């Protein structure tokens, strides 16, 4: 199975994400934001955390309009898998691949700590290694993770079982405690917490490892 990790100026979790994919058995290609094509045969695109383009204008806004993002959108439109973490989630909302937006944390502070998440659904390649309702501990590190969407969108996400993760103890003011959501075809996941930072014993926690393992086994079989 092959993964591409997109690198923007200001990405800082790109290598961590590549390591997590590689440890799960994926072949990983790093792809620069100015590239206009993805390497052939890519199963999943990872959009990493960081501060792409210095968070200028809005977090993720300039990255979402970079040349490679047109390809990422085409990949998603073909039914390809896309995982956006932290700044990657912000990029995915800015591209319109996922609904809603991420605003400044309600408490205005940058928050960097491990938080409890509740798994919302087992029904995706990202979450099939967990049990719905299970609590996992995953680090967050963001200033703009306050998820907002209209009541209609939240109702739709809920009705379609697309809320992948909720915060156990809402740290940032997110609507409906939402920490991560799936696209309608369940193949695009955006989440603020960092599973790639909880994927090795040396990280101090391994609750994120199951996500990369389930992605790798599902896509290897596909």
């Amino acid at each position, binding site marked *: 199975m092959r993964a591409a990790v997109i690198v923007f100026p200001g990405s800082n979790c790109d290598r961590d994400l590549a390591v997590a994919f590689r440890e799960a058995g994926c072949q990983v290609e790093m792809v620069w934001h100015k590239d206009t094509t993805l390497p052939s045969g890519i199963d999943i695109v990872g959009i990493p955390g960081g501060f792409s383009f210095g968070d200028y204008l*809005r977090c993720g*806004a300039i990255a979402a309009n970079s040349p490679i993002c047109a390809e990422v959108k085409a990949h998603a439109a073909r039914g390809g898998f896309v995982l956006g973490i932290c700044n990657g989630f912000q990029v995915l909302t800015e591209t319109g691949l996922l*609904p809603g937006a991420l*605003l*400044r944390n309600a408490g*205005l502070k940058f928050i960097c700590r491990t938080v409890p998440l509740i798994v919302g659904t087992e029904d995706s390649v990202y979450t099939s290694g967990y049990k719905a309702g299970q609590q996992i501990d995953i680090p967050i590190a963001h200033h703009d993770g306050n998820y*907002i969407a209209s009541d209609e969108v939240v109702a739709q996400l809920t009705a379609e079982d697309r809320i992948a993760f909720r915060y156990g103890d809402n740290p940032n003011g997110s609507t409906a405690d939402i920490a991560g959501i799936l696209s309608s075809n369940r193949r695009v996941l955006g989440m603020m917490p960092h599973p790639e930072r909880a994927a090795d014993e040396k990280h101090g926690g391994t609750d994120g490892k199951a996500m990369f393992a389930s992605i790798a086994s599902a896509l290897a079989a596909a």
Partner: protein
Amino acid sequence: MKARVHVMLKDGVLDPQGEAVRHALGGLGFGGVDKVRQGKVIELDLADGTTEDRVREMCEKLLANTVIESYQIEMS
């Protein structure tokens, strides 16, 4: 020619930064400030003949996120 684009969070979208500014003003003794909303102003130097419609496209595509923000364009 120039365009000035005002981008604001939509009404109903909580603005924690504006709220912090309101709180700070109160702390400085400025009473009677009921609400503060913080936005941004983007000034564009444009080639002659650029239309307001063209600037509106820029707003829709990049300058504003219309999920959470509204914008106003002033051409001069």
